[in-house]
């Protein structure tokens, strides 16, 4: 279990993580989502004590990580692909980590096999592709048979077969009762693996939800020549109306029936009125729209 409690991290004047709290529970895959620069990697570094929070604290399996007698048995992490000396072979890289805990050589061979790296075990890490680097990082994360597995953008650079492998591996680890957390900036990728979602933007918690709850965030697509008039007409406390095009609105909090009737009373023509399940990707974009750190010019 990972408990992040009211954690704040500043680099100079910039607040990267802002009073963030969430819990990743055992037996589940938790997706940690947010746009680039949302503070995901910083949060993960704080979980394993690489960065110290300015305030708040983090517990791994109920205690501070640094106090553990066998840290690699508590949590296995992949923080970035190719985090290793390029001149070292895959097997030496893993052996160096294993020896700190007296983990036997046989376990090193085991995780290499599991990650599909047995054939390149004696190759230098510097010659590895990004995908092979990810596999090595995942192998390192599993070395200590950890209760928690935390991976930062694990499928970056993996081929489709590799993506599928990670998906199955992580669901398998969660099914064994382990806590699994993975970060991504792509909803489509996480929604296939995770059930629990932590969504952050600009270091703040935007949503602590489940994939199921997020998908049922229904909305109505309306196409009308008078969007402004309709917008005022149907507005209300629990209603959000977003403009999705020159004549298009996306409405939540009102049914198609309510909108149709309201439009009829004022004689506002409607070209289209459809109930929609917001796709996960859209739901995510909506949630994080205001929190995108690096946005392309429109």
């Amino acid at each position, binding site marked *: 279990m990972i408990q992040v409690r009211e954690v704040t991290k500043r680099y100079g004047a910039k607040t990267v993580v802002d009073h963030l709290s969430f819990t990743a529970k055992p037996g589940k895959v938790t997706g940690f989502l947010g746009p680039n620069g949302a503070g995901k990697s910083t949060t993960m570094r704080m979980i394993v004590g690489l960065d110290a929070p300015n305030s708040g604290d983090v517990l791994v399996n109920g205690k501070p990580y640094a106090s553990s007698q066998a840290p690699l048995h508590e949590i296995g992490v992949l923080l970035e692909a190719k985090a290793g000396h390029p001149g070292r072979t895959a097997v030496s890289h893993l*052996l160096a980590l294993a*020896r700190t805990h007296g983990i036997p050589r046989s376990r090193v061979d085991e995780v290499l096999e599991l990650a599909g790296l047995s054939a390149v075990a004696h190759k230098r890490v510097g010659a590895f592709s990004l995908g092979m680097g990810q596999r090595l990082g995942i192998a390192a994360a599993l070395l200590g048979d950890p209760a928690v597995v935390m991976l930062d953008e694990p499928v970056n650079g993996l081929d489709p077969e590799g993506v599928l492998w990670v998906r199955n591996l992580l669901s398998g680890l969660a099914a064994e009762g382990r806590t699994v957390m993975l970060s991504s900036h792509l909803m489509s990728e996480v929604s296939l693996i995770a059930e629990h979602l932590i969504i952050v933007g600009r270091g703040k918690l935007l949503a602590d939800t489940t994939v199921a709850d997020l998908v049922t965030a229904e909305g109505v697509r309306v196409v009308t020549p008078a969007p402004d008039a309709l917008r005022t007409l149907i507005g209300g406390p629990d209603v959000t109306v977003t403009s999705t095009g020159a004549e298009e609105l996306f409405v939540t909090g009102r049914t198609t029936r309510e909108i149709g009737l309201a439009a009829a009373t004022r004689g506002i023509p409607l070209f289209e009125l459809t109930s929609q399940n917001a796709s996960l990707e859209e739901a995510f974009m909506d949630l994080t729209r205001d929190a995108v750190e690096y946005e392309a010019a429109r």
Partner: protein
Amino acid sequence: MKITPGGVVAAEWTKFSSLRSTWITTGISVLLLIVFGTIASASFSGDSLSAVDLALSGSTLAALAVGVLGALLAASEYTTGMIRATLAAVPRRLPVLWSKSLVAGLAALVVMTAGAFAAFALGSAVLNQDVGALGLGDDGVVRALVGAGLYLGLVAVLGVALGMLVRSSAGAIAILAGVLLIVPGLAALLPDAIADAITPYLPSNAGSAVMTLTQGEGTLAPWTGLAVFAGYVVVTLGVAAYRLKKSDA
């Protein structure tokens, strides 16, 4: 399965010994020591230097090479991103610094002590006839050779400390070269009264005292010199430990 001090040392040894650069740098260090010592022994004529001093005349360059060895071992953790994996496995952090220092220091000590004896043996074999031959039984000879190994071992630890402190290979090597080679030259530019007072205490001068057979004016006694140099190393290690413990990786 548990983290143990011995385990961390074993891990650091694995890291140290699994890099090609380790073997190259170590090889170069010992080669410099032996080749320079042999050449100097064969070519020097005069009575200002003893056979031991000549045999160890490569020690300045060898010191630079072992220092680079230690600096690379430590700084490469940061330049390659390995440090995150390292500290995630050993979140208490300081055992990593102690173990790295121990591994680099002991390896340099063993190899360079052997190198010093080899340089003396080869040097004695080709010694210029104008220089008086010495044997291992002569006063101070074994002390100077063992001292050379100890000094070079400490230089490797200094390299590790600098590498962990500045987290950049180029930066650590520049500081190391500056301290060992350039500072003594700069001190000579100071007014005589000041220069005479501080010169013996400069790191490389203090450390070299233990491997000089003929103590000149203005050098420290052998073991005092080594102790002063060890003091510099301990202080640098302390600062490196503080930064490692206190700042984000």
